[in-house]
C-alpha cells in the first residue's frame, strides 16, 4: 500500500471483465446518433448549401448548419480562428459543414448523400515550406500563426572563433497519428435543465468552455463528465471540443440524448495529429568536443487552424537544444498554416521533431571528431547548477548524470559496441548498430500555459473511514486514478481499497486545466497533499483538545494512528471524529511554482524537468533495407515512482510509440491535401511482433516541491526514440537518415547512394 508500491490499478478489474463503460457502451432511451457532413475539398468557397431535401429522409430528426449555432460559430482553443461549422469557405478536406441527427448512423449517412453543396474549388496550399508569404492566404497576411525565440549569450561573437568545428543539417519529420484504440466520442443529454456531456476526453474544462461559447449558455448549465477513456496521447486534449459540440448542437435543439462515435476512417481523416516539422541546426564545438554555440530554426506545419499550435511550438522551441550546457544559443520556432487537417497535441508536444534533429546532428559531430557519441554527450550534458538554453539553473530533482551513468552501465554500452563491431566484420548482409539519445522534458504547462496552471482536490472521509477523492485530472489509461488513490492512502497510512477516486465532473471540481504535459501526477498530487494535510491538521487539533495535551506529531501508519503515547485504530479515530463533528471534508486549491519567459526566451521555462537516456540496438538487412529493433534500454528520471509498475508501463508504451514514429508510421497525403492513410492497414503502428526486448530503467531524484517527491514524465519515453533508432542504423551501416520514418524503401535508397 501507499506511495512507491506497484499496487494493482484500481480500474483494471472492470477493464478485464468488460464492465467498464466507454461512450459507445452507453445506450439511452430515445437516443439519436449524430453524423457530420464534411468538406470534400481541401480549399474552396461555399457557394450554396441546401439541407432541406436531406431533412425529409426517413429517420432524420434534424440537420444543423452554421445558421443553427446559438452562440459563436467558433471552437475556442487558444486563438479563435477555428470555425465550428463552415459558412463561407473550407480550409481542409473533412472540415465540418453540417451535423445530422438520425435514428441510426446508417440513416444519417444516407441523408448526408442528399445534402446539396456547391463549392468553388481553390488551389490548396499543402507544402508547408511554401506557406509563409504564399499568395494562397489561410491565416492573416503571411500564414504564420506564431513564433518563439530563445536567445542566450552572443552567438555572433562566439562563432567568429575560427577554431570551432561546425556541423549543420536539415531534418524532416512526418505527421503522427495517435491511434488511441477508442475512437472519439460523446453522448449529450439534458438532465435537471442542464446540458450534460459524457465524453472520451483529456480536458473536460476545455469542453465546458468551448460549449459555453458555441451554445451561449452559462457554464453551470453545461456539465461535462469524463467517461472511461480508451487512450488519448494528446489526441483528446482539444479535439473533444469539436466532437462534443457536434453532438451538443443536436441535443440542444432536439432535447433528446444524442450520441456520436466516430468511425475510424473519419477519426483518422479529421482529428489532430503530430505537426510535421523541418529543423535546421548548426552546432559548433571546440576541438575537445565541448559545445560552444548552436543555431536552430524550427518550422511546424500547423494545418488549417491554429488549435494548440502556439503551445506546441513553445515546447518545441524550448526543447530544441536538449539537455546540454551551451552558452550561446539562437533558436527560432515558427508555425505556418496549410490546407491540411489541423495538427495539435501529441505526446511530446512539438519536441520529438527537434530532438530527432539535435540527437542526429550530435552523432554527425561525434563522427567528425572521431569520438564515441556517448562520450560526446557525456562531456556536454548539464550538471546540477548549470543552465538550460533559457538560462534556467537546474538543481532540484536533476537526475541527468545519474540517468546517464545508469543507462550506460545497464546497457553495457561499450562492451556491446565491441561485440557488434565483431559481428559486423563477420557478417556481410546483416549489420547491427547501437544508437543513443539523451533528452530532457519540462514538466507541466510551462510559462506559455501558466494561466491554466492550477491544482485542486476534494477529499471526503466518511464515518466508516472510507474516502472519496475528486481531482480535475483525467484517467485515460496512464494510471492517474491509481496514483491518486495511492497518494491519498499514503497520507492516512491506510490501504488503497479505502479510497475511491471519482469520475471528473465539472459541476463538482474546480478547473485545474487540462490533463496534459505529464502534469497529472504532480497536479493531482499537490491538491491531495494539501487537502489531506488540512484534514490531518484539524484532527491533530481535535486530539489535543480531547486529550488536553500537546502532541508533537500525529502519525498514520498501517491503519493505525500514533500520537504521544497513544495508539488508535484509524477507523476508531474517524468514528470518533465523526461523532464529535470534526469536519473531514476539504477542498484545496493551489498554484504550482511560477514560470517565466521573456522576449528573448530567457527565464524559468518550466518549474522542473525530467531527464532521460535511451540506447537502442538494431539489425539492418542490407539487401532489403529492413530494420529489426533488437533491444532498447530506456532510462528515465521520474522524481518519485509513485507506482513503479505503471511507470514502467509508461516507459515501454511510450517508447514503442516513439519507435513506431521512427520506423514505420507513415501518414500519406495526396498533392491536394487529401489524407490517404485512413485506417490501420495503411497507417501501420507497431504490433506484438514489433516490440524489442525492453529494459525500462527508473531513476528517482525526488523533486523537493513535488507531492511525495514526484514530478511526472509520461511523454518523455516517446520523445527520444526516433533518433536513438536512426543513430543505431547509422552505426550499423553508415547511412544518415534525415527523414523519418526509416522505412525499408528509405533505408535501401540511402544504402544504394552510399555504394
Amino acid at each position, binding site marked *: 500500500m501507499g506511495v512507491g508500491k*506497484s499496487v*494493482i*490499478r484500481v*480500474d*483494471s*478489474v*472492470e*477493464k*478485464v*471483465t*468488460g*464492465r*467498464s*463503460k*466507454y461512450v*459507445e*457502451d452507453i*445506450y439511452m432511451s430515445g437516443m439519436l446518433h449524430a453524423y457530420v457532413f464534411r468538406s470534400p475539398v481541401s480549399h474552396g468557397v461555399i457557394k450554396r448549401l441546401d439541407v432541406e431535401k436531406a431533412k425529409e429522409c426517413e429517420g432524420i430528426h434534424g440537420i444543423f448548419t452554421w445558421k443553427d449555432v446559438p452562440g459563436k460559430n467558433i471552437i475556442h482553443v487558444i486563438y479563435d480562428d477555428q470555425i465550428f461549422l463552415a459558412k463561407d469557405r473550407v480550409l481542409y478536406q473533412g472540415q465540418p459543414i453540417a451535423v445530422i441527427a438520425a435514428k441510426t448512423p446508417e440513416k444519417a449517412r444516407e441523408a448526408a448523400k442528399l445534402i446539396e453543396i456547391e463549392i468553388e474549388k481553390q488551389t490548396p496550399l499543402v507544402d508547408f515550406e511554401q506557406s509563409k508569404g504564399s499568395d494562397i492566404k489561410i491565416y492573416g497576411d503571411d500564414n504564420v500563426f506564431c513564433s518563439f525565440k530563445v536567445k542566450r549569450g552572443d552567438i555572433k561573437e562566439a562563432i567568429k572563433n575560427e577554431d570551432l568545428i561546425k556541423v549543420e543539417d536539415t531534418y524532416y519529420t512526418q505527421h503522427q497519428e*495517435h*491511434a*488511441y*484504440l*477508442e*475512437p472519439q466520442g460523446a453522448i449529450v443529454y439534458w438532465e435537471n435543465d442542464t446540458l450534460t456531456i459524457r465524453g472520451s476526453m483529456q480536458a473536460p474544462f476545455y469542453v465546458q468552455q468551448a460549449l459555453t461559447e458555441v451554445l451561449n449558455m452559462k457554464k453551470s448549465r453545461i456539465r461535462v463528465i469524463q467517461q*472511461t*477513456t*480508451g*487512450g*488519448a*496521447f494528446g489526441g483528446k486534449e482539444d479535439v473533444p471540443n469539436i466532437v462534443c459540440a457536434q453532438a451538443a448542437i443536436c441535443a440542444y435543439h432536439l432535447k433528446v440524448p444524442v450520441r456520436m462515435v466516430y*468511425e*475510424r476512417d473519419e477519426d483518422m481523416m479529421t482529428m489532430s495529429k503530430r505537426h510535421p516539422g523541418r529543423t535546421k541546426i548548426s552546432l559548433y564545438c571546440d576541438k575537445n568536443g565541448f559545445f560552444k554555440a548552436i543555431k536552430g530554426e524550427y518550422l511546424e506545419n500547423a494545418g488549417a487552424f491554429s488549435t494548440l499550435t502556439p503551445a506546441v511550438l513553445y515546447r518545441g522551441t524550448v526543447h530544441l537544444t536538449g539537455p546540454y550546457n551551451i552558452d550561446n544559443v539562437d533558436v527560432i520556432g515558427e508555425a505556418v498554416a496549410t490546407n491540411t487537417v489541423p495538427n495539435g497535441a501529441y505526446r511530446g508536444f512539438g519536441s520529438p521533431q527537434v530532438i530527432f534533429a539535435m540527437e542526429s546532428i550530435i552523432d554527425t559531430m561525434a563522427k567528425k571528431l572521431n569520438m564515441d557519441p556517448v562520450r560526446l554527450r557525456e562531456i556536454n550534458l548539464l550538471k546540477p547548477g548549470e543552465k538550460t538554453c533559457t538560462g534556467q539553473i537546474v538543481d532540484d530533482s536533476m537526475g541527468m548524470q545519474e540517468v546517464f551513468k545508469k543507462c550506460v552501465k545497464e546497457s553495457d554500452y561499450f562492451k556491446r559496441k565491441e561485440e557488434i563491431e565483431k559481428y559486423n566484420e563477420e557478417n556481410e548482409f546483416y549489420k547491427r548498430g547501437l544508437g543513443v539519445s539523451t533528452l530532457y522534458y519540462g514538466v507541466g504547462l510551462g510559462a506559455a500555459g501558466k494561466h491554466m496552471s492550477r491544482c485542486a482536490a476534494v477529499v471526503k472521509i466518511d464515518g466508516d473511514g472510507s474516502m472519496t477523492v475528486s481531482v480535475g485530472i483525467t484517467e*485515460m*489509461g*496512464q*494510471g492517474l486514478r491509481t496514483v491518486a488513490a495511492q497518494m491519498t492512502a499514503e497520507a492516512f497510512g491506510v490501504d488503497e481499497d479505502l479510497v475511491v477516486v471519482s469520475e471528473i465532473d465539472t459541476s463538482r471540481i474546480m478547473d485545474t486545466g487540462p490533463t496534459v504535459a505529464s502534469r497529472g501526477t504532480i497536479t493531482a498530487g499537490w491538491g491531495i497533499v494539501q487537502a489531506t494535510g488540512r484534514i490531518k491538521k484539524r484532527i491533530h487539533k481535535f486530539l489535543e483538545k480531547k486529550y488536553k495535551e500537546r502532541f508533537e506529531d500525529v502519525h498514520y501508519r498501517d491503519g493505525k494512528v500514533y500520537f504521544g503515547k497513544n495508539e488508535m485504530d484509524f477507523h476508531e479515530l474517524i468514528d470518533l471524529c465523526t461523532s464529535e463533528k470534526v469536519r473531514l471534508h476539504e477542498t484545496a486549491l493551489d498554484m504550482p511554482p511560477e514560470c517565466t519567459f521573456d522576449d528573448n526566451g530567457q527565464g524559468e521555462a518550466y518549474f522542473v524537468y525530467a531527464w532521460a537516456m535511451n540506447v537502442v540496438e538494431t539489425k539492418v538487412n542490407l539487401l532489403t533495407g529492413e530494420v529489426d529493433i533488437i533491444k532498447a534500454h530506456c532510462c528515465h528520471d521520474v522524481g518519485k515512482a509513485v507506482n513503479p*509498475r*505503471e511507470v*514502467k*508501463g509508461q516507459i*515501454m*508504451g*511510450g*517508447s*514503442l*510509440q516513439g519507435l513506431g514514429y521512427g520506423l514505420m508510421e507513415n501518414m500519406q497525403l495526396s498533392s491536394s491535401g487529401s489524407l490517404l492513410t485512413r*485506417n*490501420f*492497414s495503411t497507417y501501420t*503502428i*507497431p*504490433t*506484438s*511482433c514489433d*516490440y524489442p526486448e*525492453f529494459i525500462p530503467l527508473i531513476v528517482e531524484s525526488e523533486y523537493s516541491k513535488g507531492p511525495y517527491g514526484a514530478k511526472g514524465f509520461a511523454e518523455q519515453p516517446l520523445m527520444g526514440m526516433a533518433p536513438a533508432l536512426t543513430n543505431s542504423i547509422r552505426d550499423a551501416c553508415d547511412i544518415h537518415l534525415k527523414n523519418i520514418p526509416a522505412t525499408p524503401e528509405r533505408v535501401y535508397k540511402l544504402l544504394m547512394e552510399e555504394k
Partner: protein
Amino acid sequence: MLMYLSIKVNGKDHKLKVSTTKRLLDLLREDLKLTGTKEGCGVGECGACTVIMDGKAVNSCMVLASQANGCEIITVEGLEENGELSRLQKNFLESGAVQCGFCTPGMLMSAKALLMKNPNPTVEEIKEAIAGNLCRCTGYKQIVEAIEKTAKEK
C-alpha cells in the same frame, strides 16, 4: 430481411430474430447487451472486437450474425469462473497488461483462444496469436508476459 438464429453465448442459448446484414458484433452489443466487446475500427484491423467462435478467435465486426448461426461464442463477459476472475484475467492485472483497457477484451479473447488450442505456447506463438490485436498503451511486453504466466500455471 430478417432471420431466426440460434446461438450459444457464454454458455447460454439464445434464439433471436435479426437482420441478415447485422454483424455479430452488433448482435452481441445491442441484442444481448454484452458491451464488453469493443469496436475500434470496424474493418477487422485492430482486433478490439475479438470474440471466440467455435474455438477460434474472430473479429466480430467481420462476421455476420447469420454466419454465427448454431455456433458457440465466448466473449469477455464469459471469462470469469464461478464469479471470480480467471487466471488469465488475474495475470493481466498483475503483469500491468491493462492501461486504457479498450484493447483488453479483444486481447484476452485472442489469448484465451490460443491457450484453448495450445496450452504451452512459446513466446513467439503468443506474439503471433495477438498480432492482430493492436494496443497503443502498453508496448505489449506485459501482455505477452501475462499470457506466458497463465500457460505456465496450468
